[in-house]
């Protein structure tokens, strides 16, 4: 279990490393990428529950982002795979519950349940994939700075930054505890409920003690309750064009059934 936690965190770190690259996508203002990503999430959520094919043109955005931003598919797909059980669990019972036939692919009848299950998976892939690409091409701290500039309350932004910063420290603490338990537990048994409870309590106490030390360190460097982030953000014409252009594409995909249109055009040509 320890190794799994550690490797999962190493993966987060490796995605963050990509943010240091210098590509046209990386140079865009974080706000432009953040707004476009949020617009994509809204577009994804706005489709009906049985829509699958109409969602697919939205994938153009993450694909372009990854291609122009030099983001390798490997780490992103690995993250998606790790989180996929959640999406599968949400939709796996749909095919059993919703058995009304909705479409036919040749001799195969597709029920509503299978369609909605597929829709959930596509939505999950689009949303999480795009969010991961946002972090990979922008960096978590720049995303937070963009959130602050877009009006998210400072306190919330600081919380996000601190959670991200100390996620690694906290998980190291937890991993060490689990390892120490494993070394003294016979037959490598997992911690029982009682032991796990006291370990969690320990972790909480350690976290509180650390929070006090961090606060003391902040006070020593003149912290007076106001958090001053320095991230000069400059929104240029390119950034605005990027956001407006993509939002236009999302609106078009939402308004017009592009895959059907494409099929009709191809059919006529054929």
């Amino acid at each position, binding site marked *: 279990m320890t190794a799994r936690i550690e490797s999962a965190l190493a993966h987060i770190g490796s995605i963050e490393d990509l943010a240091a690259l210098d590509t046209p996508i990386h140079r865009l203002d974080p706000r432009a990428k953040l707004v476009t990503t949020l617009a994509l999430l809204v577009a994804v959520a706005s489709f009906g529950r049985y829509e699958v094919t109409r969602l697919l043109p939205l994938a153009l955005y993450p694909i372009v982002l990854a291609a122009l931003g030099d983001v390798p598919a490997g780490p992103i797909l690995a993250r998606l795979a790790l989180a996929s059980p959640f999406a599968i669990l949400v939709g796996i019972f749909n095919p059993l519950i919703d058995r009304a036939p909705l479409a036919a692919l040749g001799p195969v009848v597709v029920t509503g349940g299978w369609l909605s299950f597929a829709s959930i998976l596509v939505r999950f892939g689009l949303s999480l994939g795009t969010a991961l690409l946002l972090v990979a091409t922008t960096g978590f701290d720049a995303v937070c700075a963009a959130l602050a500039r877009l009006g998210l309350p400072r306190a919330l932004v600081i919380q996000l930054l601190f959670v991200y910063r100390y996620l690694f*420290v906290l998980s190291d603490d937890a991993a060490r505890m689990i390892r120490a338990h494993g070394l003294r537990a016979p037959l490598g048994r997992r911690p029982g409920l009682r032991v796990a409870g006291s370990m969690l309590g320990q972790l909480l106490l350690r976290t509180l003690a650390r929070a006090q030390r*961090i606060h*003391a*360190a902040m006070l*020593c*460097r003149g912290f007076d309750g106001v958090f*001053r982030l320095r991230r*000069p953000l400059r929104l240029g014409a390119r950034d605005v064009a990027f956001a407006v252009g993509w939002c236009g594409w999302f609106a078009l995909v939402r308004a017009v059934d592009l895959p059907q249109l494409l099929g009709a055009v191809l059919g006529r040509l054929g």
Partner: protein
Amino acid sequence: MSHHLVSAEDLCFAYADGTPALQGVTFTIHHGESVGLVGANGAGKSTLLLHLAGVLFPVSGHVRVGDWPVTSATLPRVRRSLGMIFQDPDDQLFMPTVGDDVAFGPLNLDLPPEEVEARVGEALERVGAAHLRGRPSHRLSGGEKRSITIASVLSMSPDILVLDEPSASLDPAARRRLIALLRSFEHTKIVASHDLDLVLEVCARTIVLHEGRVAADGPTAGIFADDALLARAHLERPLRLQGCPRCGSAAAR
């Protein structure tokens, strides 16, 4: 400015559960001095340092830093002239990148952005870490983290540096670099450490704390030669002052 840069007078402090931590600590540290603070675990070293930075306040007695008594009203001034470097770098490096961490203090002083950038550059240059500026703080090595914690305090241009166990968990090469760096500073320095060899190299004067009291205060060489005192304070001679274990020859001086 006063030449008595840091002084404590009859300092007493007890933790909330009633455990006494400091019981009448008195000393005066003059401008430009390097002072080692040594003592057993629980002798009160860290507690004393927290009083100097005004993180803790004494039950009775006074602390003065520069021209000011340390009270809640003078804290901004005190913290401007006294830079505190904590034992665990992870407690001190809380910002997303190294540059942000070093800029944190100057930004709190409300300096203009160009001045902040200049100070960040200077401080990182001073500790030989200019190349780490854009890196995330949490993914540095132990030695790099230590350098950045020092830079994050130097950027506020303090007169006094207070370090709590600066060499803890450093590898020998990083520790050696730290010693060279500390020796190159002209600031008044107060170094609490179990690393007595480091104290011997960096500090001309040493204060020994034992059970919340000053057990001795004087030139480092004299204190580390007093075996009875060291034993009483749960300490021992620095390795450099011990005889050679293989040939039995006398220690280097």
